[in-house]
Every structure is written in C-alpha cells, then in structure tokens.
C-alpha cells in the first residue's frame, strides 16, 4: 500500500499554500495526515502535489477573543484536548475530543484537518455545528468566514471554495453562570468512528429553566444535524426527561438515516433520539451542579 507518486512542497505561509492549491486542482494540503495518508496509501486519494502546512506557525494557536475561543487550523487535537482555556470556555470540546481516534492520532491530527475532511461520523464537525462555530479560510489572498451550518453539506463534502485553505475556527463562548455539556457516541469499539453521536450544551437561568440549548446529532445522516425544532420546543422549559424525549423524537421523525455495514437506518434513528436525550440530560445535570463552567 504505497501511495501514488506526488510532488511535495512546504508552504512558508498561508498565501503560498493557497497559490499552490489554486495552481492545480489535484493539489492538496497535508497537516496531520491521519486521514489523508491512509487514503493515499490505499490510492483512493491521489494528489499530484502535497502542500505541507505544518510549519506555518501562524496557523497554530488557541486564543481568547472574548466572545469566542479561536483555534488555528493546524493546532493539534491533543493540544486542544489538554488546554485549560478550552476546558474553561468551550467545555464541550474538552469533553468530546478524547473520543477522537487514539492518542497517537490526536498527537498529529489537527482541528482544521478534521473539519475540512467532514466525515459525517467525526466529532469535530458535530461540535462545530452544535456550537455554531465559524470557520475561517483563506483564498486568493483574502480571508473569509463561513458559519458551520453552511459549511458541511454532505459526506466528506464542504462548501470550502476551490483553492481555499482553512485557517481556523472560532467557537462561541457561553457566558452564563450555569452552563453544562453532554456528549455521547456509540460504536463497536471505543475508538472507532461513531455509529451515532450526540452533543448538547445547556444554559440554565437562575430559576433553573432552560435559557439556551443547543442539540445536534452526528453519524446518522450525511452531515451533523442541529435539532432546531427540539431546541425551540425545549427553550424556557424545565428540561424534564419526557419533554426532552418528545422534542428530540419529533425533531428526528423525518430523517433518512444512513445504513451500512455497521448499523441499520432504524438503529441510527432510534439511537440518535436516545443519545440526544442523554446528552441533554447530562448537560442539564451539569448545569444544575455548576457555579461556573463545567470541568
């Protein structure tokens, strides 16, 4: 399983990378390589040129921008996993990242790589959708941004323009005093891609009612899906189990889940409902118990 031949360049900065990308359609960037390199080994991906962006220091950062936490595209997943700022301000990320692959793949895999790859079962796209993250990219010498909702449109398909390269992602920070998170995924073995996953973040008001809620599911359909109708239904309420179950069931009634070697469509639908409810319950409990943000 040796990759097909390719040329290799190291980009010194993002514009050099974009220029190389624009010059040839079958050029790709490589960051962590944890997904791209196996595809190349199996000759399913055959770029004629790889642009290595690992050394562009400006793409590796974790910053507190006030309203958001900004993470550079080539920041390693393991760095985000351990970062205390992220744990405080975007606890859902800290909760979910340990579920990505294995320690050895998180050591190299990047935040941007996983987002750009857009695997329907991947954790980071799910979190980006749940939290309404904004993705930044560079193309033709210009920086642009795109909300996560507009970014993931199919299995491994994004609206990233040709010749563009992701530069970073901003995760909004929920500032309330009682914020909690929940994350669940189910798979055959612990570190596999999920059959179904669910993420939730809840902010409770002083009266214990739900002030704000975000729920999304992953791996069930072609891209991560926010449960907008469930959120609307549950907002302002007490998030009782029955209400959550009903809201989530309604929201998922009409989806057309994926069926494959690992799980049937019915399994995905049913378990999506179950995991979404569990994620909300976890988030609610944590919000009730917390004075500040979650650990």
């Amino acid at each position, binding site marked *: 399983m040796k990759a097909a*031949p390719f040329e290799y360049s190291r980009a010194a900065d993002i514009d050099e990378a974009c220029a190389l990308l624009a010059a040839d359609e079958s050029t790709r960037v490589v960051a962590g390589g944890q997904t791209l390199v196996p595809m190349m080994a199996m000759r399913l991906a055959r770029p004629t040129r790889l642009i290595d962006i690992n050394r562009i220091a400006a793409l590796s950062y974790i910053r507190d921008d006030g309203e958001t936490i900004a993470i550079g595209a080539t920041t390693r997943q393991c760095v985000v996993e351990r970062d205390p700022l992220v744990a405080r301000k975007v606890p859902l990320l800290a909760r979910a990242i340990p579920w990505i692959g294995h320690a050895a793949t998180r050591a190299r895999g990047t935040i941007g790589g996983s987002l750009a790859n857009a695997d329907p079962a991947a954790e980071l796209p799910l979190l980006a959708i749940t939290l309404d993250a904004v993705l930044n990219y560079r193309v033709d010498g210009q920086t642009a941004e795109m909300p996560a909702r507009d970014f993931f449109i199919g299995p491994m398909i994004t609206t990233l323009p040709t010749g563009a390269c992701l530069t970073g992602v901003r995760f909004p920070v929920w500032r309330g005093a009682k914020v909690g998170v929940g994350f669940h995924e189910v798979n*055959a073995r*612990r570190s596999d891609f999920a*059959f179904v996953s669910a993420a939730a973040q809840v902010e409770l008001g002083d009266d214990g009612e739900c002030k704000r809620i975000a729920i999304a599911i992953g791996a069930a359909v072609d891209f991560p899906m926010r449960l907008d109708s469930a959120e609307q239904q549950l907002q302002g309420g007490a998030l009782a189990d029955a209400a959550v179950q009903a809201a989530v069931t309604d929201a998922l009634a009409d989806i057309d889940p994926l069926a494959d*070697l690992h799980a049937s469509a019915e*399994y995905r639908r049913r378990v999506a409902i179950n995991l979404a409810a569990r994620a909300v319950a976890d988030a609610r409990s944590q919000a009730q118990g917390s004075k500040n943000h979650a650990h």
Partner: protein
Amino acid sequence: MSENPDHFRFVSTDRRVREDRRFVVGKGNFVADIDVANTRHVALVTCPYPAAAIKSIDKSAALAMPGVHYVLDGRELAEATLPLMTGLDTPNVPRRPLALDVARYAGEWVAAVVADTRALAEDAAETVKVVYEKLPFVLDAEQALQAGSVLVHEAHGSNVLLDKTFVWGAVDKDFADSPRHLSLRVKWGRSSTVPIETFGVVASWDPWREILDVWASIQMPRYADQIGIALKIPVSSVRVHYDVDVGGSYGVKRGIKHTVLVGYLTRRLGFPVRLIEDRLENMRGGDAHGPERLFNVDVAFDDSGVIRSMKMRALENVGAYAGRSPFQLGKPVGAIVGPYKIQSVQYRAMAVVTNKTTQEAVRGFGQSPTNVAIERTIDEVAHTLGLDPIEVRRRNMIRHEEFPYTIPSGTTYDSGDYHTVIDKVLAHTSYEDLKKERDRLRSAGKLAGIGIAACLEPSGGNAMFEALINPKITTTTFMDSCRITVDGLGSITATMHTTSSGQGHETLVSTVIGEVLQVNPDSIRVTRPDSLNSLPSGTPVGSRMAIMLGGAAFHAANKLKTKLTAIATHDLGIPLERAIYANGEVYDRNAPQDRRTWADLVQIAHRNFHRMPSDMEPGLAVSHVMQVPTGGKLPTADGRVQMYPCTSFEFHLILVTIDPDLGTPEIVCYRIGHDCGTVINPKIVRGMTMGGIAHGIGAALYEEFAYDGEGQLMAQSFMDYLLPSSHEVPPVEIIHHVTPSPNTVLGQKGSGESGYLGAPAAVANAINDALRPLGISTNTLPIKVSVLGDMIAAARANKGH
C-alpha cells in the same frame, strides 16, 4: 501451576521465555527484515468481480515502465507448475496462485508484477489492463447447495466439495426412545485470525547448486514438499529457512500460492523475488479467511437434562477454492460430544464452494465453531427444562474416574477432571454472588446475563481427519523431532525443525532437555536448521508442540542420558544398576566419590575412544523422531478413529451486560478454569489463554469478513474488520488445575488454542441469558451492536415497553 512443584526442577517453574530478549529490542527476524541482495518485489493485479472470465491481459504499459521486470499471468504459471495441493479428492476444483481463465472471487490474483521496488510494482500493477467478462456468482452456502445454483467450478458439476455423513451408535433408536427433543440453528460468521504481520515470502533460486532458498512467515505442514511438487523440483532442492520469526499466525499462514508464485519467478528471472502482502492483498486475496459455518443441531434428552443422542449438520462455506480447509469439518469429530457422555451421534459434514475468498486453517481447526453449537444447545436444553445450566452440564459430563473415555466417534479422551475444575472456579467466584450481581444489574435497567462454556482442546495434532474425510489418504503419523549434540567442549545444542510464531518453542525445548539432563536450561542452545538439515516436523498446528516437540526433546535427552551413563559405567567398571545420574554427572551408588563429571564424559566421547564401550559411536549426538502417542491406525469402515492423543479442558464463567437502548455489550467479569495437564512454562500457557480469549471475544462480537450483495468484501481493511483492542478485553482470572495426561512424557497437554475454543460460546450464552427475559435469542456470530439493538427494540415494542 503444577500440583507437585517439588516433582520438577525446571518444568512448571516461572522461567522467562528466552525468545523475548530479541523481540524487546526489535531484533526479531521477520521476513520483511531479511535483506537478500538483488531482490525484486511483487505486487498483484486482482480481479474486481466475484466471478469473471479473463478475456485478455495487456501488460504492455506495465512493461514499459522503468524498473519493471516482468508481468506473470495465470496461463504461463499454470503451464509451468502443478496445481496446489488439496486435501479432498476434487480434481475438477484445481487451485492455483494466479487465476487461470476464470477468476472466482473479488480480490483473486490474476497477474503478478515484478519491479525494483514494491511502490513501482504497485504503480505498474495499476496499468495492467485486464478485460473481464462478468459471470454469475453465488455467495450463500445454502443457495450454493440448491439444484440450479450458479456453479463456481463448472467442471465439478456441483458446488459440493464434501458431503459425508457419519453415524456412530443407535442414533435413530436413541431419538425415538427419548422423551425430549430440541433443535437449534447456529451460524458462525466468517472471521479469521488476522495476524498483525501479513504473509510474506522471499525466494531465491541458485541454478548452480540447484537450491531454492525460501524465507517465509510460514506455519504449514509439508511446506517444502508442496513447494517441490508444485514447482516440479525435488524437495531436496528446496531449502526453507526455519529461523524466520513469524509475526503471529494461529493457523492461517499457509502462503503456498505466494510461495509457488515467487518460487517460479525467481527460477524464471534469475534473481531473488519477494512478496510481502499488503493489508488489502491479505484481506481480499491472501486466502486466509476462516470458517463460515452453519450448524443444525438436534438433541434427544430426558427430563433431567441428560442428552442421549445428537445429530449435527455442519455446512461450511469454503470460498472459491479449497486447500486443507474442508478438513476443518473433520477435526471436531475427535471431540464431537465435547466433555459430555452423549451416547450416539450422527454428523453430516458438508463443504461448498462459493465466490468468496478462499478459507484457511484457523486456530482450533473448526473446534471453536463446533463448541458454540454444542454449548448453545446445552444451554437451551437447561432453559427448556428450567434447570441450572451448570448443573445440566455436570450431569452430562464425563466423570474423573471414567477416563480414559471413548466417545462414539472412536476417540479416547486421555484424562480429565471436569467437575473439579468447575468446583474450583466456583470456589474462586461464587455463582450465587454472580447471579445476584446479574439481578442487581437487571433491576438497574440493564440487560445482564451469565455465560457458561465447557469445552475441550484436543491436542497433539494427529491429522487423522485427513483419512477420515478422504479415504484415499492413508497417513497415520504426524511426526516431530529433536536432535541434541554435545560439542567437544561440553556445550549442549538442540535443534527444532520448524518455524514458530510466538509459542516459545526454544524455551520449551531447553526446559525439557534441562529437566531430563538436570542441567540449567539457560545453558542449552536451541537452533533451527533449515529444511535440508532438519528431521521431520509436523509444524505448530493442532495444539501439538508441547506434546510432540516436548516429547521428542524428552526422548532425545533420555537417549543422551543413557549414552552418558553407559560411557560412565564402562569407564568406572561398574554394573549399570549401581550408576546414579545426577546434574550431568554419573557416580557409583556404593562409592559416590567414584564419579565421572560432564567434562570427563565429553573427553571420553570426543577424544578417548579407547575408553568407550564397544559398539558405541563416538561423539555425543542423538536424535529422536516421534510418532503421535495413541496414533497409528486408520479409521474404521464406519468412520471411527483415534483423533488426537490428549484433551485439555476449559470452563468459562462470565457476566455480560447490555445497554438496552444502545445494544452495546460489555463483559464485566471473566473467569476461566483451565486444565492442560502439566504446564511446562506457566508464562507461555497464561499468555496463550489470555490471547485466545481476546481472539474469541473478537469472533463473538466484532470480527466479520462481511460481503455485500455484489460479492464485494466490505471489511477490506482494519477500519471495517474490527480487532479487539485493550478496551474490548476485560481482565481475566485464570483458575488452574492439572490433570496429567497418561499419554505424554511429562503429563503435558496442549494449550495453543485455549480460551479461543470456549470464549465465543461463553459470550453467545451470556448474551442469550441477558436477552431471555425479553423472549428473544440470537445464534448468529458475530453478535453486532446494531443487530442486538434492533432486536431488543423490536422485542420491547412487542411487549409494550
């Protein structure tokens, strides 16, 4: 551990495994590590369809690429070589390394490209243009049996390779006379051992010496023979290097088609040729899949749960071709009733071809699937009667005092104490407490079940299933051997004559010889000569090496001890009865100061011929070639035969929970009682059992070579073929017992398959116990999360949950 630790000095003691030293520093000698000058590399062109006629192969683009030396196709290879050896008498189902005219499974090898590097060979393989004409195909074994089915091999006239029924005892009468009957259908999904190292081989032909050197990651009886036969060269022109370390095999590394391929290429092209399968080649076309077996079991029993008679039909989906694999239906005959006193048995063994990857021998050689069928059945018998499953097993089990015990199919089990092993496990872990824990989990909302399996590990590897299944085969031996020399300065060197894949055979040999000669095993060198310098060996199959290699080493050491004693008594001028051999010295019982030391004896044997007894060869070289204990007889006309000489025993007791919403199973308690007779090296045996259990958990829950409706293998890589990681294997406690075998030199039995033989059955029984309150069951392995989840949801919907 030995029940009599004082009895042995080295055997059964906690010794390190000497092979570990080279592995921990990365200095194993794996085939891909071997660097032979001028080697070129092979990559395969494979058929994308499950069945297709090969109309043409255009090699021109490949041959034009720099660094590419050759493109070999099936026609050229078929004209120069004989088909690969098959076990059954099926001349119209030939098997070849490269497809000839017709490819019969997706992934079958159609052409081989030889280039300066593996990467270049892969580049070139992509440019080879094969024109195929798609043909109809069949994937399901029951469909392949039907009249009018697509034929995988037209000339054979049907898809049936084997259909043989054995009747041992008065089966019909026993069924008629029994008050109770039960039928069960059990499906063992296609899985295999899938070692982390793929198969690889390097072959180099020396035309002046007329020797074909072969280095391979091999575990195969008659490997050199099969190479010689296929390449039409004398076997004395084949030199297989047994000092290659094999990175795991557990049965499957037979690689004969790879070897014949590179063997032909090196002779044709004049330089060494190397084929190391990549993982894709291995999974689809390496011909290392394992059993895919459908059982129909019927039992006749009484109200106390004692099973009088059993009928079993085993239908095996062999894949597109068959080498030795149909014999995997025959080996379980040697333990067809498991540890139970079932009085009569009807067994129908059927093997069919389909358009799937070819199957190879897998750890246990069919015993583990058969154990699932037996153990699921006995659980269902217990449940039907409302009796405890352990109690029903006890009632059926052969008792300690009844050994040696001959089962209906003709094999005599050597020894065992099944009831004591069970007692010991339950003394270690209270069955009542386990049931309470199960009930507590159930009331907390989980599904929970206790799983039990009691199984035998036939060991000693006598291949009598060959003659049983194919009466044209008259082999009644499965040898092994050991040679010991003491050199002129007194060091001991022993030889063993096969490759190993982690079983610690060098440690085994040195320990046994050290025990007999009463010298430190660490001082004994163990080497592996090549096949031209070796005595016969049946290789590590059939859980045989402790018995056969251990036995050969034991006998050779005793020959040496006898010779040393004779030299000493002659030189001391004393009668033999007065000689005491101790720690490498011989002394006079009546006058202990009169002795000959090891150095003295070496001096006499190597240099002082005038002091030697008459008619004795000088030097200190002995060897022993061993026959299988209890072996030597062909099967009777009604298919009774002594299969393996020994039976080890294992009793699994586990607790499994299932999340009812997700269908995810978790093993929360694992106990195994294990009796393999005298344990030669405890670290090795423990490792085997732990590894076997992990392997069995994989087969029960995670691993499957699943095919889609188009004949494509869906699990082509490790992303879809799921191997258990450390998270999937629970902590296991092993409770040991020793019932020595009367048939072996130290009382040892085999343990190479331990854990694997019973774990799938235990997991299947545990999951069924967990599902029982919902009124559902499953008898299809692997038991997948999604399937469990859907079953549970449907059952709860029916019950109004």
